[in-house]
């Protein structure tokens, strides 16, 4: 019996290298060597949207679409969306913006509720938090009509679309745009990224969703992990260029991937 399952040696090596790079940068941050990171514009956009809502006296909504935390492909962007929710809720409480978070799964509802409640408590604004109203559970399916109708009736001025978005992305973003909201959208679901980019006023694409979560955490060890991810990108670029050259000159390296 081989030591490693056939076809998985190269992925294992790459995984170890990338995780080692991430851990190394995090360790460097512990020691005070924080890498210089490009500032994500979305950090300022969150404040801009909430500020607009406060000035106009209209609510800001934070939507996450699919939050089925038992599905691995949905769990990761949902966790990232929760992290951004923590920062956004805190900012909304501090600025005094009306904040609303509809959630379509019971488990995610309890987590979102805890996050938003903690944010309001931390800002000393707990009296503005409604346990069943600020974060609301809406069954998947029924949420569509509720959100479409109430976006209009509540005249929302700002909206955040974060997490794992599927076909509802177009429905909600277009509806929010027509209702006059300023929007920030971000998902890692590749086939819905174009919709959010096209319709939302501001957008974060794919990996930036995770990066934004780390950035707004204000924890240098979290944000320095982004530098470790960049090592993975450099490796990917090198492999792509090398593979393209080898394929062009006719060298077949597919056997490496079946090791």
């Amino acid at each position, binding site marked *: 019996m081989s030591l490693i399952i056939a076809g998985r040696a190269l992925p294992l090596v790459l995984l170890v290298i990338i995780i080692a790079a991430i851990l190394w940068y995090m360790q460097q941050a512990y020691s005070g060597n924080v890498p210089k990171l490009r500032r994500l514009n979305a950090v300022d956009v969150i404040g801009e949207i909430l500020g607009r809502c406060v000035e106009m006296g209209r609510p800001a909504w934070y939507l996450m679409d699919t939050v089925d935390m038992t599905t*691995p*492909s949905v769990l990761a962007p949902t966790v990232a969306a929760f992290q951004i929710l923590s920062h956004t809720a805190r900012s909304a409480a501090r600025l005094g913006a009306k904040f609303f978070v509809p959630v379509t799964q019971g488990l995610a509802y309890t987590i979102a509720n805890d996050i938003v409640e903690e944010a309001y408590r931390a800002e000393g604004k707990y009296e503005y938090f409604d346990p069943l109203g600020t974060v609301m559970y809406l069954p998947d399916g029924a949420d569509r009509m509720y959100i479409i109708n109430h976006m209009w009736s509540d005249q929302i001025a700002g909206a955040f679309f974060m997490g794992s978005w599927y076909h509802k992305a177009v429905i909600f973003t277009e509806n929010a745009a027509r209702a006059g909201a300023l929007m920030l959208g971000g998902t890692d679901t590749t*086939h819905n990224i174009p919709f959010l980019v096209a319709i939302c006023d501001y957008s974060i694409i794919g990996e930036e969703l995770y990066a934004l979560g780390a950035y707004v955490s204000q924890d240098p060890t979290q944000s320095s992990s982004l530098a470790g991810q960049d090592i993975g990108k450099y490796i990917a670029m090198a492999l792509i260029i090398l593979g393209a050259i080898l394929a062009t000159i006719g060298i077949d390296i597919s056997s490496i991937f079946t090791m």
Partner: protein
Amino acid sequence: MSLIKKLLDLDQRIIFLVLFVALAFPILNPVMLPMAIQDYSIQAFEFADSIPDGSIVIIEGGNTAATYPQCGPGLIAQIVHLLRKDVKLVFFSIGAEQQVWTQTAIDTAISKLPAGVPAENGVNWVNLGYIPGGESATAALANNIRSVVAKDYFGTPVDEIPLMKDVNDATAFAALFWWGGSEGSIPYGVRQFVGPFGIPMSGSCTTNEVPNYSPYISAGQLQGLFGGVRGSAEYEYLLKLPGPALGQAMATNFGGLWWLILVAVGNILYFILRTRGEA
């Protein structure tokens, strides 16, 4: 406000109403218009056609109530296609609702089979039902079916099903067909069956997901793909088995034309405003 600005700010209800008429009319009054077959669909059809008669294949049925109208007819056509070649079918689903629609597709396909084509449960096909766990369940299924499945959809123990006698992992299958609807789960099959075991794979998804999987087709990991209602209609057309998808595909002609008209007119009006300096 000038007329052009009013038109550019058109109430979406008018857009919705015209679209509704454009989609409903050809469904109520069927219209057959010329249809070119996409290369992804031809590739997927030829792949299914190339499966040796008598082989065993595994099919993931991932349609829900929302996606069954567009992808369901294609799945029905696939089942008919394969059963006519005496290919044995093993179905599974990674969603609870999806298993119900998979069985609906199987029942409908069997009703469309020509006389004399065998389609006995447990002999020619078996529905293993819902297997929870998403990709990890797919991985477990590929390595050891009996580790995740004890009974089929109807409650029959797997060991009592004749078709499953010598079938316990991915190596028993000649191909994988992933009818994932809008699950976004086709990469599960690529990662757990194609990569580790080299099992060739094809499938279907909703129209908006097709660009997402074109890298896999270019890389040879997917042998074509049926995309949405157009893909289902093309499968029915290639199989010479007219069904509901063909009618719906004709409806998409008119809906698509309305979309194109809106975009073209919107841009023309926008350019007029720009030349006037009002945009």
